[in-house]
């Protein structure tokens, strides 16, 4: 049986967007994945072993039946067009072309458009809007950084190749000896797998990151700080601050430990401010550890098309942005939205029960390739081809480097790219609404 090896494949799992994957294909089936981590491998391999959806489904009165794509789209278009405040959510695990059609659809519908950043790095966006964000591409860190700090994130579990590919272990141009040329500091509430690889671990009390950041900023400016802050001794704080001040190039990576804990965007605000302060002494950058492989792309596309990165409300015809009022959890928990389109996402698994309860009570359309708890509650389920494996397109890495996703195998019959499905849906919605279909050039 002839085998085909596709090289330099881009992994469509996490924000690392590793583009050195080798995929071995036999008779249009992926039989082996090389270089990828466990998460990436699981994604590539899941297509043939997982609970794949291959037929459009329509759920009526509790029973599910297979329907034609045409019927599914017609039903979906009607549900969306009939809604007063539809929610269009997901977008972070598909390519940018689909995202662009999504924006047009939201615009025509006067809907609320949100991506998964509202439940991951939304607070980082808010903090950036407050104080900015000095950052760089990952190669800058690889080639120059001699101090790496991971704060409230656990790359060994969530971004398994981050340390080996970009930060800690690789040799860089000015860091020829690799890890020997670098110091690694981990700040977390738990002594995680990542922490176990660090030169230094600082255990912060849960929910007190803001205090610790404030103490570090104070120490940096040579103010007196208390004996103990957020469970961390003054000695430890001063030593870490010294490390920061005296490095040649420092990089602080942070995750949900800051964005989800008490303080949320204020934690991130303070972390960014610390890094800004540090630039008076040395070179220092900060970067969020983006989760979904193209959540950065969703922010990027939404922004160039609407001006805003997430939580965009078109109910007045023009884009309005006010997280707290216009994010997915807001419109769900306040029981405002009366229909939902979910694209490549599973909010039923990842939203709080209160939001899920409302979602389960309204008509939902899912475009996805696997059965998930969200497809379980959906009235219409449309099977999609998998972006980055069965469909080409663009994705933006966590440092907003755009990379071309590859197609390595053909999708199952009847599974179309998200952007094609959305285009057809857009056309049908425009027909019902009696408006001209906007041309989406980008896709």
């Amino acid at each position, binding site marked *: 049986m002839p085998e085909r090896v596709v090289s330099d494949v881009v992994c469509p799992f996490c924000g690392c967007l590793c583009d050195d994957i080798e995929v071995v294909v036999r008779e249009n089936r992926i039989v082996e994945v090389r270089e990828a981590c466990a998460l990436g491998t699981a994604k590539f391999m899941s297509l043939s072993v997982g609970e794949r959806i291959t037929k459009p489904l329509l759920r009526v009165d509790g029973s599910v039946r297979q329907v034609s794509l045409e019927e599914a789209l017609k039903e979906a278009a009607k549900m969306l067009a009939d809604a007063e405040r539809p929610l269009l959510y997901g977008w972070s695990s598909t390519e940018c072309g689909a995202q662009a059609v999504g924006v047009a659809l939201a615009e025509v519908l006067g809907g609320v458009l949100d991506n998964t950043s509202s439940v991951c790095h939304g607070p980082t966006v808010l903090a950036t*809007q407050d104080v900015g964000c000095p950052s760089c591409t990952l*190669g800058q860190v690889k080639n120059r950084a001699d101090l790496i700090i991971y704060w409230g994130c656990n790359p060994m579990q969530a971004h398994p190749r981050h340390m080996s590919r970009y930060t800690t272990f690789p040799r860089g141009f000015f860091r020829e000896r690799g890890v020997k040329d670098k110091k690694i500091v981990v700040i977390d509430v738990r002594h995680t797998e990542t922490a176990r690889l660090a030169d230094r671990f600082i255990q912060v009390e849960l929910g007190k990151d803001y205090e610790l950041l404030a103490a570090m900023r104070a120490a940096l400016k040579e103010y007196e700080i208390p004996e103990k802050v957020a469970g961390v001794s003054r000695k430890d704080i001063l030593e870490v601050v010294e490390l920061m001040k005296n490095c040649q190039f420092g990089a602080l990576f942070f995750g949900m430990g800051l964005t989800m804990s008490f303080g949320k965007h204020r934690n991130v605000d303070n972390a960014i401010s610390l890094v800004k302060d540090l630039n008076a002494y040395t070179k220092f950058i900060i970067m969020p550890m983006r989760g979904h492989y193209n959540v950065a792309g969703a922010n990027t596309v939404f922004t*160039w098309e609407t001006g805003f990165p997430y939580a965009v409300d078109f109910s007045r*015809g023009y884009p309005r942005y006010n997280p707290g009022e216009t994010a997915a959890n807001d419109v769900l928990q306040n029981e405002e939205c009366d229909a939902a389109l979910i694209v490549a996402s599973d909010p039923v698994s990842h939203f709080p029960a209160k939001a899920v309860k409302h979602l389960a009570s309204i008509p939902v359309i899912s475009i996805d390739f696997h059965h998930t708890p969200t497809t379980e509650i959906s009235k219409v389920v449309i099977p999609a081809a998998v972006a980055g494996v069965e469909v080409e397109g*663009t994705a933006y890495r966590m440092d907003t*480097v755009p990379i071309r996703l590859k197609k390595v195998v053909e999708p199952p019959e009847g599974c179309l790219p998200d952007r094609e499905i959305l285009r057809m849906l857009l056309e049908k919605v425009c027909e019902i609404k009696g408006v001209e279909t906007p041309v989406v050039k980008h896709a």
Partner: protein
Amino acid sequence: MTKHMILIKNGFVYDPINKIDGEKMDIAIKEGKIVDPKKVKEKEAKVIDARGKVVMPGGVDIHSHVAGPKVNAGRLFRPEDGRRQVRPFGQGLRAETGFSVPNVFATGYRYAQLGYTTVMEAATPPLKTRHTHEEMSDTPILDQGAYLILDNNWVIMEYLKAGEYEKCAAFVAWMLRSMKCFGIKSVNPGGDENWGWGKNISSVRDRVIYFDISPAEIIQGLIRVNEMLGLPHSFHIHCNNLGLPGSYTTTLETFGLSDGMPISPKVGERSQNLHVAHIQFYSYGGEDWKTFESKGDEVAKYLNNHSNITVCLGQVTFDETTTMTADGPFEYLLQSINKLKWINRDVELETSSGIVPYIYRPRSLVNAVQWAAGLEVALLTKNPWQIMMSTDHPNAGPFTRYPRVVKWLVSKKAREETIAKCHETLPNRSSIASIDREYTLYEVAVVTRASAAEALGISGFKGHLGVGADADVAIYDFNPEKQDPSREPEALEKALSRALYTIKRGHIVVENGEVVGDAPKRVFWADICFDEELEKQVLDELHETFAKYYTVSMSNYPISEEYLVGSTPIKITSK
């Protein structure tokens, strides 16, 4: 291509490339091109009565930050700007947001409303250029192209330092072709590499850390490479020491580096080998902020003696805006002065960038001097073909203010009114109040379309209304027989702000100041190979650089043509 025919009758035509200065004549359009009016029958054509109106070629912007990673980061971190100028979805148009950092739809629509049809993106970092193309492709109406930042590039610095110009040219050609870009851009040469360590460069003779090369060597090397390749546009630079008191000396030194260098385009008819962007931003004297003064007159004096240099203005418009540049260290300095939020985005092996909001106030002496410096260069440089309109959008103000800048150029009265609102010390720091020159409409047409088209090497088909040119036409509601720009500058500003008609490649895209449709788009890029054999050698060496120091695979680095809506390669045969 549309067969649609349009006849624009009896307008006052300003078409400097064809030396037409307000002559009353007809302009005919067929299949997207300008044709001889005799070839279009009135009955078969849409007839536009342009009696008492100004007719010009579609505007050409040589330098504007409208698409790509830093523009979008500016949008993302300034929702307060996104809320400033909104317009709902409808009438076949997408929703608009943003004042200084408009979304892509507003960008296309608003340029068209000004009568502009061609806009060059001022700077794109290679590694993120795919993003720039995605945005350009999503921008309606406009023909575009982008300049590729290459000066702080490790590969180029190494080649130039070793004196390997041939190899450097082969690499630059591959980069332009792979990135689908139009020309070579330099931003604070050497300074951005040093910014990788939190440092900057302070003169063109400084050395870059580790790479041990000076900005002067980078600049001269890239001018040389640019001319070896024979690119349509010249080397395009953002000088060192931007924004600083006393920076005009660096500017004059940079000017001097182009002296005696060749001018050898293989496409187009430019007469410069150096384009200095947003000249206003480094036409300053003084020792510090207290003694800050304009040296626009000195800069103009140099330009008057050196026809091999062109500049665009970067004119300050007194707005709240968003500064954004690949000059990372400058933006760090700016945020340390104005204390507003700061984005920095270094790009591995290539460049950097920064973004900071900024509010220009006439009552601030520094801002007033900046405003005066730009106008001084524009008004004291004798040859308008060396001058191009720009606000370095959005750095000195949004492009939507071009009509206001024209108002200052055509009317001393308008300038005096603004001077009256400025800091009272301004007259001691600038000669602006004593300048009498007022641009004619012909000169306005030069600096807003013709000179840019020529400097870009695209004047064969852009920036004029001769037979065979692209049918890009702007019609403005201003009657030069009855109205005097000098005395009625507001009327001209209003007319230029909302074109009566904008026609792009034969499609009417604006009518009565409102956008009414789209037109086929083109994105220009230099399709060039310097020397196939040498290129192979260069790429072999490059594999190691990618494997070791980049974080993307070399095979995933080039951008395929499918990213470009209306991809328009400009074929250049070098050897």
